[in-house]
């Protein structure tokens, strides 16, 4: 049996460890999770190849253990997509953060 504490193993490589009981509850995808998935699929669509599966996997393995463990599944997918798109120069981190603040503001105003 493989040594599950082997320091050479990546933090994503968890087969054989024991993360405890499985929670069988299945939740619906939230609308933003569907949208994030749709954006990533659209960018990876045949003929586009702006963001493909292997890049998404590599980003997850590169984001670092604290972030990987801290984020849930769709947060991790979104973080991975962001990492690759910034890396490709489609937009910068600063641009993105600035836009996120603006959107937060717009949404707060819409909530009243």
């Amino acid at each position: 049996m493989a040594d599950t504490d082997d320091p050479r193993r990546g933090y994503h490589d968890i087969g054989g460890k024991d993360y405890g009981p499985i929670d069988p509850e299945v939740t619906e995808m939230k609308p933003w999770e569907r949208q994030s998935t749709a954006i990533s699929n659209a960018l990876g669509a045949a003929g586009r190849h702006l963001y493909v599966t292997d890049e998404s996997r590599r980003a997850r393995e590169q984001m670092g253990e604290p972030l990987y463990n801290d984020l849930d599944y769709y947060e991790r997918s979104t973080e991975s997509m962001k990492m690759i798109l910034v890396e490709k120069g489609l937009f910068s981190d600063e641009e993105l953060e600035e836009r996120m603040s603006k959107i937060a503001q717009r949404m707060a105003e819409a909530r009243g």
Partner: protein
Amino acid sequence: MAEERGTHDHDHDHDLTFQPNIEDGEPGRYELMTYAIRELLMEKGHLTPEELRAAQEKVESLQKSDGAMIIAKAWTDPDFKQRLLDDGNAALAEVGVDAGAAKMTVVENTDDVQNVVVCTLCSCYPRAVLGMPPDWYRSKSYRSRVVIEPRKVLSEFGTDVPDDMTVRVHDSLADLRYLVIPRRPEGTEGWSEEQLAAIVTRDTMVGVANPTAS
């Protein structure tokens, strides 16, 4: 989900048509990031509203799984089942399912073998057939444990596998996906494909449960 129909004016990319449930309180960081990525990609011409709408529709339609009909067809058409086992991608293409670039390996449960699918490294899943993976499939608990104590994990799903039966756990990859053909239960002789499809659930095609004739 707010729906956008008809012509979509690019000047309206900043509106909140995609933003549902604003009553639900403040959006999280990754929700905001998703909307910001969408806006920036559209403004810079990397993504059109049409492309996004089509992709959204596809994600939504994936939730209504094609898998059950495929299994029902495999149960009633031995030649089709053989083609699925020989070359999953090609057999799925026959019935109009694009399984994508990853290889789709189809495995069959028998009286002696129970197959179970996992992705220990991430959450690779046969999305083209089963939609998005359920929470437990993505959980660290399932990913870590099913490869060392599959019988115990299966029993937690209410599936008890007899000791004289082999449990085969298949670990997926970005380039290799698995789909399980469950065992057709006794008492389903003469059933139509529709009747059969109704007893094939997602969990039975991942291999953590088995269909029953009730």
